[in-house]
């Protein structure tokens, strides 16, 4: 089933025509209504009239997360605030969050994109969908919700947490589709087994994955445990939320909703646009977003674009699943973590040497964050209980800063590698590539 055949199976020429018309229109709207864009365009000596072909988008300046942060809270809106009917924010783990505003029309587009995606998973109005994504400022919960309601599915808006309850409801309500982050999915499976429930006997027909990076092995494991195919969902709050790109039954890349988002891949060093098929940083432009047009946003996500015929019949371009980041952001159990936050927490503790190392692993399919810290004479105590207390104390400081539990290991002085310039402090052993 295809939700919107006209949009999803459009010929290449027709799509490019549509994209160009929409691009010209949104550039003009951004230029005329958002001072930030006008200033940026003027600095480059560009006016909306300079956009004559799709390729001309490369002349436009890139927008970064910092730009959005500077516009906090409502500086990027292209409409009077009263036309905005909903607000979301990114997690805001590195200073001020970025705000995303949606008009009624924008919520309609969001619903449409997610409806297309859920239909790719095989969802119909006969299904019952359990949505474990959080409902709130995070876009995950609502995005899935809007799409599901657009199709007419029965939604269980259970949100994250209450794991035992999740399992009970999944079984009692006979959920046929469940949406979770891969690591939460595996946790659910484990708890279910402890509760004596065989997850293979649930009547699941599809699983939607969102909000974190995963490996093919992880997908296989989840599919085996739940006896259902798992599909990837891509999205980011700055652009819209989940629904920007989703996976079809081919299980080979995510179809980008090209009539609403224009994708490019750039080299994150030279900022030059790369040809199709080459790996680089994904840059997205909203083609239809009314309340808050976003022009050439640097997602920092690493992927490649591939245009080829898909057996599902859709002509929408595909992107590979995300294999990395161009900055040092780590996604731990779905939460964005920057090494600088951990450093900030460590610097608050007296007597601690500012030498540390971060090790991320996924031993039992769950992300584990270990922070190795050099002990110092000031910290050291002859008593085990005091030393354990110090370790816990450091863990609490980091928890306060990043919102996640970590394991702190005290190591001997001068044993962590020193390097000139930028030290390599992060070792991600999860192997996403």
């Amino acid at each position, binding site marked *: 089933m295809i939700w919107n055949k006209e949009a999803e199976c459009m010929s290449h020429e027709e799509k490019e025509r549509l994209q160009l018309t929409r691009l010209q229109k949104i550039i003009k709207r951004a230029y005329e209504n958002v001072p930030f864009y006008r200033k940026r365009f003027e600095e480059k000596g560009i006016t909306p009239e300079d956009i004559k072909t799709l390729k001309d988008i490369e002349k436009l300046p890139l927008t970064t997360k910092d730009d959005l942060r500077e516009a906090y809270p409502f500086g990027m809106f292209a409409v009077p605030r009263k036309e905005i009917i909903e607000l979301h924010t990114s997690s805001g783990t590195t200073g001020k969050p970025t705000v995303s505003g949606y008009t009624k029309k924008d919520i309609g587009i969001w619903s449409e994109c997610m409806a297309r995606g859920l239909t790719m998973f095989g969802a119909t109005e006969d299904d019952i969908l359990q949505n474990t994504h959080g409902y709130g400022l995070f876009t995950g919960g609502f995005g899935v919700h809007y799409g599901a309601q657009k199709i007419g599915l029965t939604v269980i808006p259970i949100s994250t947490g209450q794991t035992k309850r999740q399992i009970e409801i999944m079984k009692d309500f006979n959920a046929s589709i469940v949406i979770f982050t891969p690591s939460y999915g595996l946790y659910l499976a484990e708890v279910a087994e402890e509760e004596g429930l065989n997850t293979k006997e649930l009547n699941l027909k599809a699983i939607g994955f969102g909000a974190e990076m995963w490996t093919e092995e992880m997908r296989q494991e989840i599919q085996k445990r739940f006896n259902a195919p798992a599909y990837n969902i891509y999205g980011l709050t700055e652009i819209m939320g989940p629904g920007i790109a989703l996976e079809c039954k081919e299980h080979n890349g995510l179809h980008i909703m090209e009539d609403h988002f224009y994708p490019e891949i750039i080299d994150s060093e030279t900022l030059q646009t790369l040809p199709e098929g080459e790996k680089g940083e994904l840059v997205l432009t909203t083609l239809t977003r009314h309340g808050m047009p976003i022009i050439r946003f640097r997602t920092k996500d690493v992927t490649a674009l591939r245009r080829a015929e898909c057996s599902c019949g859709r002509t929408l371009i595909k992107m590979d699943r995300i294999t990395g980041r161009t900055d040092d952001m780590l996604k731990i159990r779905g939460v964005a973590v920057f090494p600088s936050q951990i450093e900030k927490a460590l610097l608050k503790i007296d007597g601690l040497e500012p030498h540390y190392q971060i090790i991320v692993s996924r031993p039992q399919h769950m992300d584990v964050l270990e922070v190795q810290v050099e*002990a110092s004479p000031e910290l050291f105590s002859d008593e085990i209980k005091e030393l354990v207390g110090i370790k816990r104390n450091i863990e609490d400081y980091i928890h306060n800063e990043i919102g996640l539990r970590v394991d702190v290991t005290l190591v001997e002085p001068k044993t962590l590698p020193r390097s000139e310039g930028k030290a390599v402090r992060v070792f991600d052993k999860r192997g996403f590539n």
Partner: protein
Amino acid sequence: MVNLTLFINKIINLGYFSLNNRRDNMKIKQLSIFLENRKGRMRKALDVLEKGGVNIRALSIADTSYFGILRLIVPDPEKTKKLLEDNNFIVKIGEVIAVRMPDKPGGLGIILGILDDNDINLEYLYAFVEEKENGAIVLLHPEDINAGIKALQDNGAEVISAEEIYGM
């Protein structure tokens, strides 16, 4: 009369002084060394001591799954501390009490009983066998070391001086 009071006070003070001195003398200096929970760390510490010609009188290891603490009694604690620190170890000097245990079953029980009866909390202890005397010595780390020494001495335990331990 006045002079007599002064004189008595003097004697009392002297007594106190010598009693305190006697107790200080009973405090054995112990080195505590931080060890991270990694292969070969204990060996590295012992290598440093061997190269520095340090004879270890007694040794114990306290460990958790996160880290360990190596506790040592050596003849020259200050010098050994410096040696270890020069080799990047974190070292602290603390104090313990050494008691010669009656060499018979239940010997340790008698000593622990004294501490227990006097409400003295023990944080840890370890023991070693004395070759010459054919006996055993237990090293005790109570919360309050002064109270510990007093209780043990008052109740007839054989508390051993620092000199004797270092010189063994």
